């Protein structure tokens, strides 16, 4: 049972205020948003910071709902992903992790690197370009979500793809939102 204490200690040391692991749907998205919103409200967070955190959370959660790849491992099929919020003195970190097929990694990595290469105006132009020229496909729109997260964050998106097995990697994404600067 010591893992409970270990997990608790990790959460404390990483300053995590919310952790959810499991299946992600629109319903869980709404519950998580409501929980985080109450937390932000009760801590008296500045409204512009609150809005940016909310914004990044929505895009992050809906990305998982729409784009997380189903993990098929023998008999086991799983959609399990993880979502975390950390709160430091100077920033919030919105983090997510979900399985992704290795064949999809290169493309995603390229998109994220491109976004990180752009400055504020470049991101604005890319955002307008995408909403103007893309018709929403059933699963479309992921890169628009990342562009929006980068704009709200004002910092680079942090990401990595640790290997899960022969077929899958775990897509880890961290988006920082600075606190109380406006």
């Amino acid at each position: 049972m010591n893992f409970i204490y270990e997990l608790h200690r990790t959460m404390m040391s990483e300053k995590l205020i919310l952790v959810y692991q499991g299946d992600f749907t629109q319903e869980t998205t709404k519950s998580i948003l409501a929980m985080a919103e109450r937390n932000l409200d009760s801590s008296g967070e500045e409204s512009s910071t609150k809005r940016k955190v909310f914004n990044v959370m929505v895009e992050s959660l809906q990305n998982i709902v729409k784009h997380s790849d189903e993990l098929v491992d023998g008999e086991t099929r799983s959609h399990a992903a993880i979502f975390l919020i950390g709160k430091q003195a100077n920033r919030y970190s919105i983090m997510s992790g979900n399985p992704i097929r290795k064949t999809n990694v290169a493309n995603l990595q390229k998109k994220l690197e491109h976004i990180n290469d752009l400055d504020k105006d470049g991101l604005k132009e890319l955002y307008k370009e995408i909403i103007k020229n893309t018709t929403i496909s059933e699963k479309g729109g992921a890169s628009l979500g990342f562009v929006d997260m980068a704009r709200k964050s004002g910092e680079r998106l942090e990401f990595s793809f640790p290997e899960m097995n022969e077929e899958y990697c775990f897509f880890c994404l961290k988006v920082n939102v600075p606190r109380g600067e406006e």
Partner: protein
Amino acid sequence: MEILNLEGTEDTPKIILDKKNGIFEISGRSLPEDSTEFYRPVLEWIGNYGADANPATEFVFKLEYFNTASSKLILDVLSALEDIKGMKIMWYYHEDDEDMEEAGQEFSELVEIPFEFKTY
């Protein structure tokens, strides 16, 4: 013409489109699971309205929050409004919400309709 009236929920905006009383408003939060499906009746309504529109229309957007999937559909709504004569967009944003103000400005750069910006 029929009135389109949708109550707002925690993830969908309140929508009133009422030709007779001259009320055209989308307000609240927009982060539906399927934004295309959600905005379909709105786009249909505007399509019909365009065929016999009032001489002047003030279309109000008073959004607290919208996700990126909704932003594409909002642009679709604006594009549908673009073809209607006497159209004007009233873009409301909370007075300390620079992001919503900027979002409105970006939309105004993407369509040929006059925008008026107001705080609440």
